[in-house]
């Protein structure tokens, strides 16, 4: 196994370290809480001669993603970082990056969207970009943020993929929290991630090509289909590269991680930093004799429905925990999970729990409550309230 250096770093430093090891050529970025430390750190690497790259100081996130697109189209390896309103302001450009099949990697400090203004942990920013055609990875801890940055480049640039990717780390809970991480050596990352050499044309004044051309009704649908199939087929590539990463660096990743689910009657499904708390709750519930497991989403797009069917197909209940809300329906992961089982003969009863919005703390007790509520529904054989908000302060509600 490759030698690795132990460091203690904040989440933003972990993603910046991961990015640096990938030797990006161009980093256009606009600072926004809580991901500002990422471009700060990158600019220090460049100033200190540790990273040979161009940092483009743009005037907005829309410009940041525009510059990413131009640089990536010229054949450069490109990354950026953003959060919240910044990701929302990029929204238009996100579709262009994926439509032009540009493997840009973006670290996101997952944060709530205004109004009211709030800078804390919440998955609304990236979940609201779900349909932009990007791969979406979520981290439970800083180590995952670092590793997923490296793997995101490798997956995104794979000839079978050629799509952009976001790597989420929860605001403050990860971005500003110091944790120990093992940092792979530069030569080992160089071995794992070959230089980017796009199979499609590059922006090159000596050899012109058309990017972002007009797509009339005769072409648009086929192009979107081509891009959609490519995203769906990344499942296999992700599995393959997660396995290779584990062989080289000793850390296991799964699109949907199975923790004690094999014999579980009820499964909690989580995403991001809350998963650690959920695992602790599962352990305590297990000690109390409850047959509960945890399915952790590391990849939200493409949605790992195949693994969810394997992991939760035989369970009695599935509690989908969302740190986001799609007003008018429920949480985003809940909709995906429900859709996954729609044509199956057998499926777990499903409940959706909305929790932790705008940085509201999430406790072990909350997961136990969700478990018991799901168990009650299973025992009653019906779900009276499919979507429930957890940890609400009734006293301040109007």
């Amino acid at each position, binding site marked *: 196994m490759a030698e690795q250096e132990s460091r203690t770093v904040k989440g933003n430093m972990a993603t910046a370290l991961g990015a640096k090891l990938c030797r990006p050529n161009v980093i256009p970025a606009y600072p926004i809480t809580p991901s500002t430390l990422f471009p700060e750190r990158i600019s220090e690497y460049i100033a200190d001669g540790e990273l040979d790259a161009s940092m483009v100081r743009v005037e907005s996130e829309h410009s940041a993603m525009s510059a990413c697109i131009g640089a990536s189209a010229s054949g450069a390896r490109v990354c950026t970082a953003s959060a919240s309103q910044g990701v929302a302001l990029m929204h238009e450009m996100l579709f262009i990056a994926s439509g032009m*099949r540009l493997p840009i990697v973006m670290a996101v400090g997952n944060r709530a969207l205004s109004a009211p203004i709030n800078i804390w942990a919440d998955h609304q920013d990236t979940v609201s970009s779900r349909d932009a055609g990007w791969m979406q990875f979520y981290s439970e801890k800083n180590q995952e943020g670092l590793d997923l940055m490296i793997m995101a480049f490798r997956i995104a640039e794979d000839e079978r993929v050629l799509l952009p990717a976001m790597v989420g780390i929860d605001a403050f809970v990860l971005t500003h929290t110091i944790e120990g991480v093992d940092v792979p050596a530069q030569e080992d990352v160089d071995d794992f991630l070959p230089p980017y050499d796009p199979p499609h044309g590059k922006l090159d004044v000596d050899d012109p090509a058309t990017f972002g051309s007009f797509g*009339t009704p005769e*072409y648009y649908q086929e*192009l979107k289909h081509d891009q959609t199939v490519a995203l769906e087929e990344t499942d296999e590539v992700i599995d393959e590269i997660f396995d290779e990463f584990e062989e080289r660096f000793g850390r296991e990743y799964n699109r949907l991680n199975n923790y004690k689910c094999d014999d579980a009657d009820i499964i909690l499904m989580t995403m991001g930093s809350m998963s650690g708390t959920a695992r602790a709750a599962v352990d305590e519930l297990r000690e109390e004799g409850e047959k509960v497991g945890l399915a952790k989403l590391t990849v939200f797009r493409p949605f790992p429905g195949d693994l969810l069917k394997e992991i939760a197909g035989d369970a009695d209940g599935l509690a989908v925990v969302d740190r986001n809300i799609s007003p008018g329906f429920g949480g985003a992961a809940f909709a995906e999970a429900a859709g996954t089982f729609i044509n199956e003969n057998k499926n777990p009863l499903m409940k959706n729990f909305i929790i932790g919005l705008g940085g509201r703390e999430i406790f072990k007790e909350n997961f136990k409550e969700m478990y018991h509520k799901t168990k009650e529904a299973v025992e009653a054989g019906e779900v009276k309230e499919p979507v429930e908000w957890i940890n609400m302060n009734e006293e301040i509600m109007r």
Partner: protein
Amino acid sequence: MSKVKITLGGINEDEGSSKEYKTGSWRTMKPEVDIEKCIQCFKCFDYCPDAAVHKTEDAIEFDLDYCKGCGICEKECPVDAIVMVKEEK
């Protein structure tokens, strides 16, 4: 329907290829000219917003690969030599 194959990301590596890209597909009406009536004033040529009118030796002709069927040529023709007819596909 078009027969040109799509490319990865819609990226086109051929130079000057926009000439090959026909954009007249969404037209519902197309212009027809009565060459007998045409006095070769070329107002249609001047006013066509899409350069879809070409001058010929004895009159004009329409480039239906690009004509959008807007009908401006019909309105501008001083001798009613142009009529818009329904496009049948």
